């Protein structure tokens, strides 16, 4: 059975830490970082490896800072 594995890359310098992406994620992949970016925002980051590449987070991100990857694994 084919399985998909996803990953996201967050442009942390452009992330404003609004957290709108968090409830959009079906697998609770995203959490708030303890660190802040150059603008002083606590940006979001991945907190587990459960990403399926559904792109929900990127679709709701108001600042368009998330790039989503998905690979089919045979």
């Amino acid at each position, binding site marked *: 059975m084919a399985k998909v594995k996803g990953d996201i890359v967050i442009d942390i310098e452009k992330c*404003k830490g609004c957290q709108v992406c968090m409830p959009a994620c079906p697998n609770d992949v995203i959490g708030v970082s303890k660190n802040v970016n150059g603008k002083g*925002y606590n940006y979001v980051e991945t907190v587990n490896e459960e990403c399926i590449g559904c792109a929900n987070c990127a679709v709701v991100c108001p600042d368009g800072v998330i790039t989503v*990857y998905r690979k089919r694994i045979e």
Partner: protein
Amino acid sequence: MDTISKEDIRKPENIVYKRTELLTDKVMSYCPGCGHGTAHRIIMEVLEEMGIQDKTIGIAPVGCSVLAYEFMNIDMQQAAHGRAPALATAVKRLNPDKFVFTYQGDGDLAAIGTAETIHACNRGENIVIIFINNGIYGMTGGQMAPTTLEGMKSSTSPYGRDIKSMGNPIKMTELVAQLPGTIYVTRQAVHTPANVRKAKKAVRKAFENQKLNKGLSFVEIVSNCNSGWKMTPNQANQWMVDNMFPFYPLGDIKVNED
């Protein structure tokens, strides 16, 4: 199998979503969590998918989105408060082969620009109007808007909007749907992935209508203003669901298929 590395996944051929090239690299000036950014992005994605960047002229007047031209990588005109539909009328009539849209907030479209909005809709100008309704004047610091709900607090209705003394919130979208010049009138939101996808389809349909010279398409996007509403972004989205949507229900209001 589970040992697949991030490097294997993060390859260009595996990209399923990335920021459209039609947004500039500038960090948008909107507050964290504001729906403006998402609305900007879906419009730019539609233009990119339709391949009409070189034929599109956007017009954003005064309001939070006054600097939209900093973020949308297309030719843009900055209009006076409320006047974008007048500019768009001329741009489209003088350039019938171009795609023209306005991007207006509620203060702009539903208060100071009411005449321009109604008459552009009534003439059936072959343009797209994107109307961002967050029930407040965000840019100037959270004053009452024409769309502010009854009882809703703002800096100029600090005890809540009193209908008797401050008037009723206006449903511009239902209003313009009654005009024969509008071909497609819809109300959308961009707070969840499903809503964003629907809103994007609506925007796409609006531009396709323009391509077919069908008339004026009007897309309202009910949005949050978490700083104006004084909530966190996710709280604001929930407040929007609980309070804005009952008064401003989502969905198509008018779809003329001919």
